């Protein structure tokens, strides 16, 4: 975004609307939450993107917030192993979440998410043998984060 093309709903626009007063970034969050009807669930789940709940099931480690029991049963029926199933079910496409993020920005953002997942995994399951990875689909312009067998 260029200097001339300000985000009309962003932090700078917020400061400008307040005539240059010193207002913190959390004050901006407060403004957004007060002026928009957004469920608390949204904020909670958004924070889980960086600090997910990891559960163990059938020998695989899964991101609980991204778990789909129907798909899990389908994979079991197809004869996939726990670690194979985990690598598919844990996939989160960052470029789908943030469609207007550039490929490079999505890559940088995914690295942050992946680091958070690895930190959570190391803290809660240090012997899991799983790691978080960033997967780049350059041809398709897609970036994913997943939790899979190391």
């Amino acid at each position, binding site marked *: 975004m260029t200097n001339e093309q300000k985000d009309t709903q962003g932090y700078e626009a917020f400061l400008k609307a307040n005539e240059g007063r010193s207002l913190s970034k959390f004050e901006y969050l407060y403004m957004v939450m007060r002026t928009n009807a957004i469920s608390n669930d949204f904020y909670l789940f958004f924070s889980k993107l960086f600090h997910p709940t990891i559960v163990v099931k059938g020998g695989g480690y899964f991101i609980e917030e991204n778990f789909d029991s129907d798909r899990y049963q389908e994979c079991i029926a197809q004869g996939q192993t726990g670690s194979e199933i985990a690598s598919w079910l844990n996939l989160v496409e960052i470029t789908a979440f943030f469609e207007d993020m550039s*490929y490079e920005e999505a890559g940088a953002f995914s690295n942050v998410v992946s680091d958070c997942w690895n930190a959570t995994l190391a803290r809660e399951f240090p012997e899991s043998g799983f790691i978080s990875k960033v997967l780049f689909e350059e041809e398709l312009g897609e970036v994913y984060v997943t939790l899979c067998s190391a």
Partner: protein
Amino acid sequence: MLSRSLGQDPTDSVELSCTRCGHFLSAPNVSFDDWAEQLIFCFRRSFSKERTTDETGISLTVGHYDSRGNYSPTPGPCIPLPPRNPERHAPPPVPYNGDFYSQPKRTIERETPTSTCHIGLKFIWDNGEGLGCDLPCVLTPASGEPIRTRLDEYSRFVGSIPDGPYQAQMLGDVDTEERVVRSRAEVQAALEAILDAERAEAAALQAVQDERGFVANAFYTYLAIGKGALYAAWGLVKSLKEYGDLINPVTYFSNVIVAAWNANASDGTGWITSFQNSFSAEQHRELIEAFGFDPSKINREQVAEAYELACFIAEDGPSKEMLARFVADYALAQNYEEVAEFGGGAVFEIVFAALLVLFTGGVGVVASARLLPLVQRLGQRLRGLGQSLRNARIKKAGRADGKGAGAQIVEVERPKQITPEPVTRQDVEAAFQKSKKARNAPPKPLVDEPHSIVERPGREGQYTTHYGDGTYKQYRGSGKEHGGIPRPNVKFNQLNVSPSGKNYPGGPQVRAVKPEEFPK
């Protein structure tokens, strides 16, 4: 059956009788042609099936042949043909004078006036450049028929016409205004096709945005169309190289082409030659490569042609208004918040981008396959519009009145120059984000009913099945294994329901391919 008095002059009194059909014609002043035609008519009729009654005495009449030789089962009447041109007669031949080499002049019906008035006309643009070779021109002398001619290689007409005043009109027989109107309509249709494609994609995204609310939408970038944004939005710019203002190939190109357009062509060379002299092959290569194309596929003349067409289009009010509306609509379809002020630079951007794709076939660019043919079609239509406007200008100003022998130069005003907007790295990056988004999505559905689109055939290829409700399934065969998701795989989504009861296509998921999903 048919008798003629032998020894008589055929142009004099002729007795014609047709005993078979009972027709008897006695014409005192029948020409030979009329007599022959009547003869053929009666001869054909004599070959009708009623002829057999002569030999057998039994009437077998079942039909007749008409004057064209077509058979009809109904017996037809014998109707004498009326004589043709009874008033006109060939002039009596002059008796041979015995000298083969000194025959009298043949008499013709219309006398051609003697051309004794020598004139010279030269049609040029206001920079001194000729309008062009072989352009049609109509010269209308006060006395005599209009003379249709063409300009020579020096954009001139030199010749003789009947004495007296005359009027010269370039493209006198061409309805240039009608062609302009038609070309505008064709461009409008091509622009609408692009907008429809973008709106369809945006509609699918909007459903997601509506659910996403303010916070997630705050991540949206707002960028202005213009200043190279369209190049990148259509995937035409691949280079993210950091260019300083002085070495930016687009900046340099802009400076050179404007200078060449305004240069005086008094030395006889065209403005394109002046442009080529100042814009080296190396600079051309850098410019075209910055747009992601193979420089061998588009030459400097074609780049100059794009500029010239854009200049003509930018000075045409309705065309400029149409393109400005397109840019605004395109920005709306893309959810852009701002639209840059629409100027000549934006006109050039549209024309140049479309012609780049047209000339090169779009090979090498990252624009979606869905949009490429539409942009190509736009290129064709814009080319036609630019040429129609050029012709309309030539016809409007390319006229001259002369009083007799002499030479004159007719000057036609060219459109003013437009300045192509330099493309900066920031503009390209901002727009590139949009093009990434476009690449991300599977190809848009072609109809509202379930159908499949084969992007690459075969087991290693790629295809997308749309289910008609916004959901899809994309099979991705081959691809880079290293660092990516195992191939082949399937990306899909499902239809969900929001708390407000509204259906929307859910987020994408990726899984392994089921055996029945492999292409056969």
